[in-house]
């Protein structure tokens, strides 16, 4: 078993910024300096594997993101064990930025992240408060600060997820109230590191210019995670997952048709990765229902009700556009 350091006991009183939050957190019992710990047991007790496994199972692809989350989980777990030996180090900064195209799973991962951090005891509640510019920035002078603070208070103990964060900053208007919201965030991200994790999300290029015009933000964010677009096979796997959850399935020809559909759809504008898959399947449900109702004078089996046929996809505009 690995025995972490444990040679000299640092009796540091270097205070956490928010003592109330820190002391309420379930800290592991104190260990004598010559004790050893079973990290595997700690790991089982924390229940992080459950989350990491569901993450693996329910999210297709995203290998770099998953690796980073595993690394982070390991760090946080070891950190907690170290605290048992009074080897205190400052809590690792957990603010993150998620960049990637629409529908690549940023919101989904953020939700899981909140749960994971909660299991690891980094945040007390584990809820996610998702906001955009409108929730933070006010309409008139003096409106922004209370609004932003309100949101921050609601998110405390959990994760504050700021979608399309670049809208907070409008380069063309230096009096824009967004700047005020950013300043409050900057302050709270530093002073309440123990009770709040902030995740910024948005499209990659615009996030980069947002961070370059707000260097203070970027330097407070320790983890920049990039969500890449899915390839065709991954999209098919995502479709399979979604169908399974909704108790539908493709007939064999329908699977080929759907593959064809996705190939065409990927080339078109406003393709939104997994979300486009979801939308396509929603529309297929609609067409399937109508197909079933339109055919009179026969009965349908359980399997008929679950199965998509090629015509449920062929009616799509995606195919129509190609032929004209």
């Amino acid at each position, binding site marked *: 078993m690995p025995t972490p350091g444990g040679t000299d006991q640092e009796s540091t009183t270097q205070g956490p910024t*928010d*003592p*109330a*939050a820190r*002391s*309420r957190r379930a800290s592991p019992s104190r260990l004598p300096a010559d004790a050893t710990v079973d990290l595997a047991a700690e790991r089982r007790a924390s229940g992080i594997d459950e989350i990491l496994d569901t993450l693996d199972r329910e999210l297709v692809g995203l290998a770099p993101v998953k690796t980073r989350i595993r690394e982070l989980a390991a760090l946080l777990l070891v950190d907690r064990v170290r605290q048992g030996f009074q080897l205190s180090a400052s809590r690792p900064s957990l603010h993150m930025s998620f960049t990637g195209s629409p529908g690549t799973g940023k919101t989904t991962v953020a939700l899981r992240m909140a749960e994971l951090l909660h299991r690891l005891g980094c945040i*007390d*509640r584990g*809820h996610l408060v998702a906001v955009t510019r409108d929730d933070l920035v006010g309409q008139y002078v003096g409106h922004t600060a*209370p609004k932003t603070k*309100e949101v*921050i*208070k*609601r998110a*405390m*103990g*959990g994760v504050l997820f700021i979608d399309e964060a670049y809208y907070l900053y409008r380069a063309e208007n230096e009096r824009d109230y967004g700047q005020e919201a950013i300043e409050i965030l900057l302050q709270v991200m530093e002073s*309440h590191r123990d*009770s*709040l994790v902030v995740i910024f999300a948005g499209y990659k290029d615009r996030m980069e210019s947002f961070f370059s015009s707000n260097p203070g933000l970027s330097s407070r964010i320790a983890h920049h995670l990039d969500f890449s677009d899915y390839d065709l096979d991954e999209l098919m796997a995502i479709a399979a997952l979604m169908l399974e959850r909704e108790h539908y399935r493709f007939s064999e020809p329908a699977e080929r048709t759907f593959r064809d559909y996705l190939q065409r759809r990927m080339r078109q504008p406003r393709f939104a990765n997994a979300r486009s898959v979801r939308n396509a399947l929603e529309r297929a449900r609609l067409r399937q229902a109508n197909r079933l109702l339109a055919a009179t004078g026969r009965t349908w089996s359980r399997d008929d009700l679950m199965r998509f046929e090629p015509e449920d996809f062929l009616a799509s505009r995606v195919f129509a556009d190609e032929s004209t």
Partner: protein
Amino acid sequence: MRITQGTFSYLPDLTDDEIAMQVQYALDHGWALSVEFTDDPHPRNHYWHMWGLPMFDLHDAAGVVYEVNECRQAYPLYYIRVNAYDASPTRQTTALSFIVNRPPDEPGFRLERQEHVDRRLRYTLHPYAADRPAGDRYPPTMPER
């Protein structure tokens, strides 16, 4: 004279950790919390100033503790209390209300007697602090008395 008002009033002042735990208890019951302050310690003074609006939809005590600290910073010499309001239909009242900040020096009250008809006496309490104008009742060091 240390004034005692509200819940826990006969306990020693709560520490910040204890305040956070009480707030969390209130949040876990779904009560809305608010912060109020005043410099009039009279027990019948029900109308304290509101420090911002009541807070709804919080999950964690840190948000309330944050406002308490902001209020303490702005009014270090005032009384500050935290209220928890239970809005459930059968109750609809303040479920919990406790003092989280008080002036360092509390001069207390004098008993006043008012002569009434037939030599009857009426009694009332008068806080010494109220002799000074509102907003200036608890100077950092109280004058010699």
